[in-house]
């Protein structure tokens, strides 16, 4: 528990604290000046930090402080708590779960993990929910730590962008990860997470075996993490246009991989873990951004704790401070800045830098464009993925790793097929408190939908073959179309033929529409030369061909959807009412007229659209514009850590008391949850083993 220095924390259990009423809670807070059942007293503020760390006065003290409550942070928290440590998780958001909560829950591990073994034997899960047969054959599941390690450090594999996804991985980091995959899978299962049948492997998870499984809950008459059930309303499946406060994205049908009545996505992973964490006594300080590390000396000595800033998120309609779904274990704290001392260790799990245009632009300067946020903007807020771990780590001398890997995962940034919303990533609908930040759910037109419009840049000019804009190279994973000549079990690791020049020329399959979208245009001005927003322009006939539902909640009057009687009026409306439209779309009418001429001629001399798909006039009023979003989803470069998840400095020395995991670290070009959970498991284990300072 977050506790006063020198005071044994009051280890109340979940149910006990659940009985503390809101009135009691506030009262206690008033007495303590803070709030919560096991918090320190005001005098703690006067406690001086150890010599050399300046005049830091500690407001809280626990064994392990974790910055970030996502897949790495929450796993680390539970693990450290299991091993007896008191744990406080600090998160900038109002709710727990980070990106994990709106993910697809595909946890790709392997090395002979328990779910692989379960499916090899053909058994069901321990509760008997799974009634379908295994999806993968035994041979496809027959894995080992050595094979996993080999796969994830394979120098020979290229993807369809002809980049090496595995060869630059940090070897010690990957070895430790592979060795801990089986234990992490078991750990997750022990904390109420239910895994469906293994089905494939996630990008960056290796080409040789099937290693990934999604998480599920069963539809029932109550939402109960212990029982593994969820109501249709909470799952967001009762009404296709509603989500719930419990599940910010609609859960999907998992019957193919579990049994009839199974639903899944990140909710089935994040909520059980959060429930378990709170049940075990992990505490959370929400609405609080991790900002700085406190070290004994600026570049030497132990990490002593963190400084965190109040980052309240208010309800978009009511203006009230938003509340987490569960609140037991929350530490109420509204001071601007607090210092939290970590007796054992600090774990940085506050995510990557995809949400910080200034930082991410070091990899792609055009992506300094603020019109394009990272995914999950509404749910996570504008301080999500803000490079806080990277920035804080650099300030205490940490080294970096794998920064270039931002450019070597095939879908790090891409053009979304969901149009008409700035937050183009999720399926969040009205019902979740943050939907108001989104304003509209967007219209997912799919890849095929891109033939129905022309795409223009901020001055109203086309820039690429629209049909090829959203296409992404295949993921580099089992069984995969990621580039290796041998698919599935036919893949031969470490074989030079995997990257033989002739083969690479044959398999290369990347369209560069995104790069054309980000190119400078006549409206790009110094010093940043922003490329500006992108627009899908179409007419009423396109709506009738496709059946797109241009109504709330899919579109709204929020600056990301426009309708007008004429193209000229459409251009004027966009220029007037879109927050990032900096210049008039002065060529739009001319572009549409030219396009209509191409349709008449049956040929598009600019981008050769006629080869790929039908071309249609944009002539029948009214006319429409939907925003097209570039998404930078996740990031890959980050702090350098060793196999114990300890952060390493520029001289190759461990920074004592500092751990990191998930997107906060670099050198591991693996997408998603599998990386973060294992990092969290290792970091939580090692942090708890640290002696108390």
């Amino acid at each position, binding site marked *: 528990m977050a506790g006063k220095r020198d005071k044994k924390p009051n280890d109340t259990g979940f149910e006990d604290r659940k009985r503390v009423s809101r009135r009691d809670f506030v009262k206690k807070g008033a007495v303590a000046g803070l709030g919560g059942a096991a918090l320190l007293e005001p005098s703690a503020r006067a406690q001086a930090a150890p010599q050399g760390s300046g005049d830091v006065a500690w407001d809280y003290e626990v064994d392990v402080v974790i910055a970030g409550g996502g897949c790495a942070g929450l796993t680390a928290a539970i693990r450290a708590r299991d091993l007896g440590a008191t744990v406080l998780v600090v998160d900038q958001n109002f709710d727990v779960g980070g990106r994990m909560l709106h993910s697809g829950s595909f946890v790709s591990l392997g090395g002979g993990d328990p779910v692989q073994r379960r499916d090899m034997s053909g058994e069901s899960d321990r509760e008997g929910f799974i009634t379908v047969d295994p999806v993968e054959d035994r041979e496809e599941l027959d894995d080992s730590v050595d094979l996993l390690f080999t796969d994830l450090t394979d120098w020979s594999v290229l993807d369809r962008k002809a980049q090496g996804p595995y060869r630059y991985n940090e070897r010690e980091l990957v070895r430790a990860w592979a060795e801990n995959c089986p234990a992490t899978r078991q750990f997750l299962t022990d904390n109420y997470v239910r895994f469906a049948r293994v089905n494939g492997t996630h990008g960056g998870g290796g080409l040789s075996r099937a290693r990934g499984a999604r998480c599920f809950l069963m539809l029932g008459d109550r939402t109960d993490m212990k029982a593994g059930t969820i109501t249709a309303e909470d799952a967001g499946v009762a009404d296709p246009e509603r989500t719930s406060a419990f599940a910010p994205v609609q859960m999907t049908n998992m019957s193919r991989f579990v049994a009839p009545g199974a639903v899944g996505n*990140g909710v089935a992973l994040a909520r059980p873990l959060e429930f378990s964490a709170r049940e075990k006594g992990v505490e959370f300080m929400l609405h609080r951004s991790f900002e700085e590390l406190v070290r004994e000396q600026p570049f030497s000595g132990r990490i002593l704790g963190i400084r965190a800033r109040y980052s309240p998120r208010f309800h978009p309609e009511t203006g009230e401070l938003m509340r987490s779904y569960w609140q037991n274990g929350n530490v109420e704290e509204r001071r601007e800045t607090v210092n939290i001392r970590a007796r054992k260790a600090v774990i940085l799990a506050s995510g990557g830098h995809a949400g910080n245009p200034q930082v991410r632009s070091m990899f792609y300067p055009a992506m300094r464009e603020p019109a394009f946020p990272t995914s999950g903007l509404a749910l996570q807020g504008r301080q999500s993925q803000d490079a806080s771990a990277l920035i804080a780590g650099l300030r205490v001398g940490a080294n970096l790793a794998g920064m270039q890997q931002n450019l070597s995962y095939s879908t790090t940034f891409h053009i979304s097929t969901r149009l008409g919303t700035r937050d183009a990533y999720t399926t969040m609908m009205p019902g979740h408190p943050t939907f108001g930040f989104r304003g509209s759910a967007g219209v997912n037109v799919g890849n095929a939908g891109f033939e129905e419009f022309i795409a223009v840049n901020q001055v109203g000019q086309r820039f690429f073959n629209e049909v090829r804009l959203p296409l992404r190279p295949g993921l580099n994973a089992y069984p995969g179309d990621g580039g290796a000549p041998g698919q599935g079990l036919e893949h031969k690791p470490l074989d030079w033929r995997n990257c033989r020049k002739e083969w690479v020329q044959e398999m290369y399959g990347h369209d560069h529409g995104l790069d054309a979208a980000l190119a400078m245009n006549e409206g790009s001005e110094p010093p940043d030369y922003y490329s500006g927003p992108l627009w899908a322009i179409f007419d009423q006939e396109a709506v009738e061909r496709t059946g797109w539902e241009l109504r709330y909640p899919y579109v709204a009057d929020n600056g990301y959807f426009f309708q007008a009687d004429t193209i000229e009026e459409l251009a004027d409306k966009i220029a007037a009412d879109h927050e990032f439209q900096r210049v008039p779309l002065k060529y739009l009418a001319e572009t549409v007229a030219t396009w209509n001429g191409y349709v008449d001629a*049956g040929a598009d001399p600019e981008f050769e659209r006629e080869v790929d798909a039908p071309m249609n006039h944009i002539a029948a*009023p009214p006319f429409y514009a939907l925003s097209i979003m570039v998404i930078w989803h996740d990031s890959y470069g980050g702090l350098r850590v060793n196999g114990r998840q300890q952060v390493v400095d520029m001289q190759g020395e461990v920074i004592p008391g500092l751990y990191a995991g998930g997107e906060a670290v670099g050198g591991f070009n693996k997408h998603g949850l599998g990386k973060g959970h294992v990092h969290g498991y290792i970091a939580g284990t090692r942090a708890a083993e640290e002696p108390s300072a």
Partner: protein
Amino acid sequence: MTISRVDVSPEEVDAGADITLDIEVSHAMPAGPEDSRLLIRDHDGAVAASVRLAEFGGETGRSGAFVVTAPLEPGTHTWSAAGAAPDSTPAPFTFTVRPHETRVLVWDAPPSVECGETFRVKLGVRCARRCRPDGWSLEVRDHERNRLATVRLGDEVWPRTDGLYYADVELKAPDREGLHQWEARATTRGLDTSHAESGAALNVRVVRAPDCVLTVEAVDAENRTPVEGAQVVVHPYRAVTDAHGVAAVRVVRGEYRVLVSGKGHVPFRNRFTVDADMTIRAQLVLDREPSDAEIWS
């Protein structure tokens, strides 16, 4: 009272639209009611507005913002502002009146027409200020500006628009094959309010009489079921598949690129030489992009 400044906004305005004026005067201490009143006169000397000073006292006074209506005649207009007292000296100010912008739209034109055949298109006009089209007509002219048809706009607004008036017109295709570049123009002469003329391209693809039937059967590649509503493009011919997934396209013998695009399917693409009636089967693969879960889990 002396007029020291007249602010005019905007200085360029649509015919009949509002102009906002704000007038500053000096020596503004009024001796009587008339001394606090300002008269705005148009170019003919007629009073266009009469306002009282909203603020006055000491050396200066102001009218505050007030609105007058711009004339309907385009061009530069010089009006004046003066105190109502007979000895007040008028202060001239100018602004420019422009015609209302109009946009002509052409839609529902057939993708191709046989030589000499009649066909219909829809023509519409939208005034930027949403004027009703009393007395408006549209002309269709060929590339040599010969008038082919004239049609008056109707009174109804096209569905889902808020000021687009339209007409349906029948036209006759030329006897010569090829892409004929015509134009539809809004004739705005003689209207009460000045409107700018405008036009839009009307391209007519004229083909000779087809001599083959290309039958396209669109089926889902996975479950073999017919795909209804698939768009078939055999440029310059187009068709849509029926409930049986079939579309019959009458074409002139030749080589064609055939595109079949079903809802939510990856387009079928192939080239065919059509020298007799023929049937092709277009197997459409579902556009199964990686789900968000697969990409971003």
